[in-house]
Structures are given as structure tokens and as C-alpha cells.
């Protein structure tokens, strides 16, 4: 577990340093994710080191959203004003995004012949 935590935190720190030093507009942890994938390509045995800890964290991912979600109480004024707009925006855009993704997937699948196995 400690080597896995060290690996996660080192990649996150390196990602933060990288995005800040060259002014990338992406979050540091996303750069850290890309670095982690690059490390996996160089040293495939690291996947086994990280797997148990990563599995525990990802299985409880929902818990990690709670503190930020509770921040809604600081935004109640915004939400109560814009509520009638926000809900339809979220619903329409989510459905459009799913339709675009599923339509493209099926069209390209048929074009490239990557049928269901």
C-alpha cells in the first residue's frame, strides 16, 4: 500500500509541477494520470503495485465527491435563481451527448467491420 500511495502522490506532484511550470490549462492530476500511463508503459510491473490501492480508491469514488457536493450550501443563492434553467440544460445536453457517442460508435463500427465478438 505504501509504495502505491507514494506512486500516486509522486505522479500527482509531478503533474502539478508540470502543468504549473509550462502553464498547461489542464488539472495537475490529469497530467499525473498521463504520467502514470507513461510509467506503466516503461515498467509494466508497476500496474500490480498500484492495483490493490487503486481498486479500493475507485470502488469508493462516490464518497470523495461528498465534501465538494456539500459546497452546494454556499451556492444556494445561485441555484435557487438558476434552477429552472440548469436542470433542462443538464438533461438535454446529457441526452445529446449520449446520442452523439452511441450513434458515432455504431456508424464507425459498421464502417470498420468491428462487429460484436
Amino acid at each position, binding site marked *: 500500500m505504501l509504495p502505491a500511495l507514494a506512486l500516486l502522490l509522486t505522479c500527482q506532484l509531478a503533474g502539478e509541477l508540470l502543468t504549473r511550470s509550462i502553464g498547461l490549462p489542464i488539472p495537475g492530476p*490529469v497530467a499525473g494520470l498521463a504520467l502514470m500511463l507513461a510509467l506503466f508503459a516503461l515498467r509494466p510491473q508497476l500496474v500490480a503495485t498500484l492495483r490493490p490501492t487503486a481498486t479500493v480508491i475507485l470502488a469508493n469514488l462516490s464518497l470523495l465527491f461528498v465534501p465538494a457536493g456539500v459546497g452546494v450550501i454556499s451556492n444556494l443563492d445561485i441555484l435557487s435563481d438558476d434552477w429552472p434553467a440548469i436542470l433542462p440544460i443538464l438533461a438535454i445536453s446529457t441526452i445529446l451527448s449520449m446520442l452523439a457517442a452511441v450513434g458515432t460508435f455504431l456508424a464507425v463500427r459498421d464502417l470498420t467491420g468491428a462487429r460484436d465478438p
Partner: protein
Amino acid sequence: MTEIPALWSYLAAAPLTWLTVTLLAYLAAATLSQALHHTPLANPVLLAVIAIAALLTLTGTEYGTYFEGAQFIHFLLGPATIALAVPLIDNARTIRRVAAPILLALLAGSVVAVISTILLAKAFGLSGSVLLSLAPKSTTAPVALGVAEAVGGIPSLTAVLVILTGIIGAITVTPMMNALRIRDWRARGFAVGVAAHGIGTARAFQVNETAGAYAGVGMALNALLTSLLVPLIVAWLV
């Protein structure tokens, strides 16, 4: 014996209290959600947030005081983003086999999610930080919060919008795909992973194992793509 008000003033200010409350509220919410057979509306995050927000309002506790305790959980969002590397590598062979459908569907779903959100928000008369908080709503929360912060949105508002998006996707995906008579589980799962991140992925796993695996891939790939796309599209459209 210590007076109850004195005890309360200790409890209300102690980070330990709010860290414990967060964990207990989530466990209770997860148990309730399980008892309701994971109905998308009984989402554990939504239930826990409502319970804690109600408690803070009732006790007159500031969000800042609460967050001093809850930050220890919040901090793990960063390592969790990097942990996504494991499912991505695990599914690397699958991704390579259907690389063309996956990559183009990812691009279409992600671009449509961001552009339609911004255009709809403008059409509904939203602007400024609220509009910018909406833009990354289809990607997984740790990434969405970082993106919102980077483009000038309000991360705590984005967190709520991301959770709502996930719930909307989880509720609508199965009836919609059935109505369209789409039977390819890979396509169905991938679409909900791109549009509705982890909550959509959890829903896909309940319906079909293959759909769940592809949803996980969609979520992880969209975490990378959205963080690149949102700043570009915001610079173009806003």
C-alpha cells in the same frame, strides 16, 4: 460534568466531527441506496450531500468549518484521478481492438456535451461563473473540479452539477437505448460513460458487465479529453 453547550462548541469546531459525519452520512446513504436496489434517484452522493447540508443548516455551521474536517476526504480526489490509470491499462487491449469506434465516439460525445451545455446555457440566459461551472459537467468529478477552477467556474457548484448529470444519465440511458433498439452493449456502455461518468458507469455495470467495462473506458478517456477540450471551447464560445 461538562455543560452540553460547551461540549457542542468543541464538537462544532473540531475537524474530527465533520470528517466523522461525512463518513457516517455516506455509509448510511450507501446502505439505504443498496436497500432500494441502487435506484438511480437514491444516489448515495446525493443523499449524503442532502443530509449533511441539512445538518449544517440546522446547526448554523459554516461550510468552511465543515470543510476543515472534510478536506481529508476531498484531498483523495487527486490520487483517485491518477488511479484511473489502472482500469485504462487493464482495458488497453479492448480499446485497441475497437479503437476507431471508441475514439470517434469519445470525440463526438465529449464535444457535443461541452458545446451543447455552453450553447444551452447561453440560450437560457446564464453567463459568467455559472456557465463556466456547467462546462465540464460530463466528466468525472475530480477532473471536473480541476477544470472548473482552471477556466474560472465555481468548483463546489460544478461538483453538484456533475453529480446531477450522472444521475440524469443513469436514469435515462436504459429507456432511451431500448427505445432506439440499440443492442450493442459496448456502444450503450461507452456512451453513458462518456456522458455521465462514474454514476453512469455504475448504472451500466448493473445492467450488463460488458456495458460496464466500456462505460469505465469512456469515463476515463473523457477525463483526459474534457480537460483539454473545455479550455479550448470556452475560449472559442464564451
